[in-house]
């Protein structure tokens, strides 16, 4: 901070008066444009008021003073003061619109968070399945907010990022930002100094209380936070957690849990199968053999789906490596499968 010049110092003072801290990569651009307009306005305002005050004093009615003739119009003067402001507002328009287009187009690889607005609460859904009512973000990464509203208009507004977008029922809207600083360190929110998130579009009774807090973490800490937040395995009974995973990991698309054996499902049904024997064709073999559906069989079928194919089915299941589905999650899914009873 040793290199602060007088001008920087001045703009810092102006910033602290007019703005919350700049906490996204947009904020600098927005504040820069704001300051440009601000000094331009200040210049013209001082000019107008100085001229007005000077004339009001100099030509004030008093004994011995009377009006003097002067031209009542002057084409070149009037054209000058029409054209110069036109050029200046053209410049403002240009910077306003280029800055705006940057704010509208999120990069392809942006981390996408789904924003759900309803009277009068925000909820946020992360790609790994975590769901929260306060917003958590990784620093230094582009984050796209895909917004939906369940009822009336709301508006997603984070002053520190200088972004705002209405949430409109019946359609998707989006905005994005790159947070450029963390609010603190650590996975837990203790010690963080979060930013405000406001609802900026009037939405009824508790509009003014439809606020949330925004926490920005180091990327690695954010990963850990998101993992922990998504990790409902610790908190729910294993069978219930397994049911959630069975849905979320897409198992449900190929495996019926209602005994449906039709080809609508690529894989075999999984209800009522626990502890029973089934005919499978081992890899490299062409003769079926019997296998008991137990913990190790299920684990093997998830980690190496091609090892034993149920007779009559085609191999085609995704290989779930530990990064896609870890051992704890497999344990939960096993608990879920145990709980599935045969359909009457």
């Amino acid at each position, binding site marked *: 901070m040793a290199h602060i010049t007088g001008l920087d110092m001045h703009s810092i003072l102006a910033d602290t008066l007019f703005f919350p801290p700049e906490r996204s990569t947009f904020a600098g651009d927005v504040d820069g444009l704001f300051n440009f307009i601000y000094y331009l306005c200040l210049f013209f305002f001082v000019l107008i008021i100085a001229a007005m005050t000077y004339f009001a004093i100099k030509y004030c009615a008093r004994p011995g003073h*009377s009006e003097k003739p002067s031209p009542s119009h002057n084409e070149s003067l009037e054209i000058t003061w029409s054209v110069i402001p036109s050029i200046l507002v053209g410049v403002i328009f240009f910077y*306003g619109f280029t800055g705006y287009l940057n704010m509208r187009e999120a990069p392809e690889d942006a981390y996408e968070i789904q924003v759900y607005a309803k009277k009068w609460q925000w909820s946020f859904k992360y790609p790994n399945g975590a769901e929260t009512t306060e917003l958590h973000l990784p620093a230094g990464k582009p984050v796209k907010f895909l917004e939906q509203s369940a009822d009336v208009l709301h508006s997603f507004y984070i002053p520190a990022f*200088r972004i705002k977008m209405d949430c409109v029922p019946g359609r998707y809207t989006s905005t994005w930002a790159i947070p450029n600083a963390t609010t603190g360190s650590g996975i837990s929110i203790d010690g963080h100094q979060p930013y405000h998130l406001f609802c*900026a579009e009037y939405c009824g009774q508790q509009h003014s209380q439809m*606020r949330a807090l925004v926490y920005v973490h180091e990327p690695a800490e954010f990963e850990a936070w998101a993992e922990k937040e998504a990790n409902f395995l610790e908190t729910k009974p294993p069978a219930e957690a397994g049911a959630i995973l069975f849905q979320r990991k897409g198992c449900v698309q190929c495996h019926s849990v209602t005994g449906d054996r039709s080809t609508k499902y690529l894989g075999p049904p999984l209800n009522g199968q626990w502890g029973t024997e089934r005919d499978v064709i081992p890899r490299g073999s062409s003769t079926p053999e019997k296998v008991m559906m137990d913990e190790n069989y299920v684990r093997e079928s998830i980690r190496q789906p091609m090892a034993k194919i149920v007779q009559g089915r085609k191999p085609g299941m995704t290989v779930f490596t530990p990064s896609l589905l870890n051992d704890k999650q497999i344990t939960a899914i096993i608990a879920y499968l145990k709980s599935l009873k045969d359909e009457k």
Partner: protein
Amino acid sequence: MATITPDTQIDIGHNDDPNSNYLTSSRGFLSWALTLDHKRIGVMYLVGIFGAFFLGGVLALLLRLQLLMPEGTFSFISLDRYNQLFTLHGAVMTFLFIIPSVPAALGNFVLPLMVGAKDVAFPRMNLASFYLWVFGAIFFLIALVTTQLDTGWTFYTPYSIETQTNVIAATCGAFILGFSSIFTGLNFIVTVNTMRPPGMTWFKMPLFMWAIYATAIIQVLATPVLGITLLLLTAERVLHIGIFDPSMGGDPVLFQHFFWFYSHPAVYIMILPGMGIMSELMSVYSRKPIFGYTFIAYSSIAIALLGFLVWGHHMFVSGQSPMSAVIFSGLTFSVSIPSAIKVFNWVATMYKGNINLATPMCYALSFIFLFSIGGLTGLFLGALATDIHLHDTYFVVAHFHYVMMGGTVIAFVGGLYHWWPKMFGVMYNEFWGRVFCAVVFIGFNLTFFPQFIMGSQGMPRRYATYAPEFQLYHDLSTIGALTLGIGMVGAIAVLVISLFNGRKAPANPWGAATLEWTCTSPPPYYNFEHAPHVGSPYDYTGLKYDPQVGGYVRDPNAAPASESGH
């Protein structure tokens, strides 16, 4: 044209005759209630409008006091109550006060006098317009005392479809008020087009007439769209037609387009007449012809036309396409130029003048100060990148109050002080007039300047409770609002007191050259005994102060008004 002699031109002789005065020419309630006289209708509007202004002002003070504390000052104002208060403050101020303020009250009184006519083109329609205003106001009061509207004055869907409050009464009120506004506008268009006296060409009209004319065009063209929109909203609520309701396939953003297609031009309905008053005041009190008459006249028309093309700037974050946002932003900047031209011209008018700092001029100078801030802060909101941050914050609240209140209301009060001697034939106390002008000026800035800062800091508007870090700005604003309230009440009190003890006003106390000052104060029922001579509206060369009369009289020996008056 009849030969004009100096003492018929300034009808001093008739001042003593009670029958020659429109206020005293007939008596009784019905003589007012059924009057077709534009002057009496103007006075009735004035009373009604100030009633609405007082109501809206009390609501505003309650809001400001509630915001002294982050969680609310008074326990009797719940969140719902707060939402109702700001809705009614906005709706009453917009529909009942500021839209009819200058055109219907001052315009009605002054415009026919300015054209040297006996009345407006359609006097019965003029009276109907007033009664529509009264009925509209009754519907608003019904919404106020029954279920209490809480949609904001903007009635945004889908909230306005599902709220249990009396949206229908309020929309009916606004619908009826719309017709009141259309009637006034239509009347003025026809009056200006057909009733100008011989010799008053378009470019010899006073600029107030240009402004009222431009306003009337917007009133007639834009207001029907509001009417249709509000009918659709009512149909949506009652019949569930599914045009705005997303649960039935409607589009809530469509409502915003319809609404702002009227309501953006409507802000020019509000400000243009104020600008018209400014052009009169700056010239008369500087005793100089208005600088750049043609540019000011054309800029009024330019504002009226361009004003129709910028409604989308209220919707930069609404979900409209980025392309339309960019186009609307560009068009928005185009409308800023005519306003800037006017301000420069007003200041240039003072050059080498003989400036009389009477109360109306004090208001005019306040206008230039406040309107400049209001106009310049519009640049932050017109620029897309900065608007994303500032939209729906207190920055916007401060911006439009600087334009609407610091602009229109200040010009309205200044105009009222200017024409008061003509309207009621009495002079007010100049000292107290200026004192309260200063109180209003200080109170206004203290109220609204802190709102710019808290807005850019991120304080959203329409919040009943707020984060504690904004408290300092809210408290300053509340102190300012109380000061402003005292100033406004004082300013009106000075005028009302003058009715009882004011010195008798001469025909032309300010030395103005427009035609309304050639009849007595107050004007006789028939306005002019003889058709007045039309000169340049801003040529002051022949007007000399006569201490015996206490006002200005036209010097019969002066050279005839020069043709190059502008």
